[in-house]
């Protein structure tokens, strides 16, 4: 009995669904073309993942290339440079995440304590600026600043910290930190926007109550400001953990050289070089590397989301 009513309800609902859909043809005109566009440009290429299991030959295409099972993955994981690429990706992501988060929260707190509106605005305008410069420009500037006769080396030498110019750009060991520093320089101001927005939504009476209770400036920051931005911090953390496999490739690709490649090449750079670097393209290796990266990324995202749920924190999905 109940099953029948359920079924009846369902058909009724479905009928209603299509009737309502027809009534909303204008909304469909506005949205469905973009939906198709997204299917074509974001989902259709996933068919290309099949090439990861093929000895893909561009001339024969997806249909004509022979299948090789997991050979491509075996090849990748047998290669030292791919394992190094995984290490580099994770290392640079973690450095970027820690540096980026700490620096932008610090700056947001400092800005939040500024009393003069005009000064605050000036600092913001200036620190947002590098976000809008292209990576090509930023890397070009970094090459000037960090070169052996550049500003950083002259500063270090005049302070007497080093005797000889440090070869920042040519030493692999410095590469991760260099990328971290450049990314902080570029994005620190921009990343404060979200935290400052969170700080302005904190109830001012909390600060008042805290200072009546005798809390000094640092105690107010510690006990009011920081708890006030916690949920924003958590959401961003989950998002960033989901993007942990995306260390970026622009900066690494532009800044790398033969001297630093052991430390500079992320998975994306690896895929790019294997696919386009030689005269005979190896698309299959690049696809396999990208596929590995995507799948790990999805696992990380859901993992972080579940962890946040378990800790009863704000979640993303």
């Amino acid at each position, binding site marked *: 009995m109940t099953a029948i009513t359920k079924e009846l309800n369902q058909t009724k609902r479905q009928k209603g669904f299509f009737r*309502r*859909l027809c009534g*909303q043809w*204008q*909304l*469909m*005109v*506005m*949205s*469905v*073309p973009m939906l198709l566009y*997204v299917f074509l*440009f*974001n*989902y259709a*290429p*996933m*068919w*290309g*993942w099949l090439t990861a299991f093929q000895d893909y030959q561009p001339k024969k295409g997806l249909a004509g290339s022979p299948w090789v099972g997991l050979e491509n993955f075996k090849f990748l994981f047998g290669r030292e440079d791919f394992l190094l690429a995984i290490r580099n990706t994770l290392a640079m992501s973690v450095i970027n995440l820690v540096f980026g988060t700490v620096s932008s929260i610090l700056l947001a707190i*400092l*800005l939040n*304590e*500024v*009393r003069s509106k005009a*000064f605050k605005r000036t*600092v913001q*305008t200036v*620190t947002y*600026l*590098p976000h*809008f*410069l*292209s990576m*090509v*420009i930023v890397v*070009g*500037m970094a*090459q*000037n*600043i960090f070169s*052996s*006769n550049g*500003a950083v080396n002259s500063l270090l030498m005049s302070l007497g910290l080093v005797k000889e110019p440090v070869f920042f750009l040519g030493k692999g060991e410095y590469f991760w930190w260099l990328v971290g520093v450049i990314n902080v320089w570029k994005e620190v101001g921009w990343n404060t926007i*979200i935290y400052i*927005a969170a700080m302005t939504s904190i109830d001012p009476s909390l600060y*008042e109550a805290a200072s009546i209770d005798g*809390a*000094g400036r640092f105690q*107010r920051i510690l006990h009011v400001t920081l708890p006030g931005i916690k949920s*924003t911090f958590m959401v961003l953390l989950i998002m960033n953990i989901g993007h942990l496999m995306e260390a970026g490739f622009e900066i690494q690709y532009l800044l790398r050289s*033969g001297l630093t490649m052991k430390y500079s090449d992320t998975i994306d750079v690896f*895929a790019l070089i294997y*696919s386009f670097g030689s005269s005979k393209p190896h698309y299959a290796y*690049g696809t396999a590397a*990208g596929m590995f990266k*995507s799948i790990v*990324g*999805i696992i990380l*995202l859901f993992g972080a989301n579940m962890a946040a749920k378990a800790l009863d924190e704000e979640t993303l999905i």
Partner: protein
Amino acid sequence: MTALNPVKRNGKRRDIVFPIVNTVVLCLLMFITLYPVLNTVAYSFNDGMDAVRGGIGIWPRVFSTSAYKELLQDGAVYQAFWISLSKTVITTVLNLFFTSMLAYALSRKEYVLRKFITVVLVLTMYVNAGLIPNYLLISRTLGLKNTFWVYIIPTMFSCFNMIVIRTYIVGLPEALVESARIDGAGDLRTFFQIILPLCLPVMATVALFVAVGAWNSWFDTYLYCGSKKNLYTLQYLLKMKLATTQNSSNAANTTADALATAAKVAPITIRCAITVVSAVPILVVYPFLQKYFVTGMALGSVKG
């Protein structure tokens, strides 16, 4: 909270010290932010041979405009500027048109496909087919390689921007749409005549994001138009200059080496001049849009 009275119990000293330290730290930060930019401008106005010695701060040592003169004689720069400009304008217009229309449709709570489409779109922020499958789609399946359209068609939509616009539209009074409906306007008309004009602030924000992205990209040229000189963008020209001077600076352990190669490869001053030329359009536009994009960014990211 900034207007609070200073806390008296802890003594006045701390409350004078902190703002001073804070101001000094922030001033230092501004200096660090601006230094590389000013340094590049200084190099671009320096004499080429002199610049090789390095050590130029924020003021040119031997003033010269020869780098810019050389740049202005180079037809490739004009062509690249034109390509960059048209790419940016067309991308921005098309992207805004489609993204805002979609954002409106997805802001309507009664729309039955709303949930489905939203999930499909948001997933694209996390799931990505990867570089090579995208390359194969665009260059082989769609045959866009070595055409101008490769700059436009693949960048017509961004989920993040859609969320920013949608959040703004949701914040508008619902009565606007209702009264338009009572007056007999359909959704298309409501959007174009009522909602769109009110979205100007958020559209300015998103326009800035899209335009900066289009202007700044070099990788699309590298992948799809690397063999087509008349489709080079300004950023790609700069990237190529970067590559040549990079090699020399890596090999240049000795100044003699550097001097010898500098005579042959593009001098640092030319590179800096292109940097300035390709950065100026952004630097000119962005301060005017700042008040819009701060609210836009905060809205989109908090509620996204």
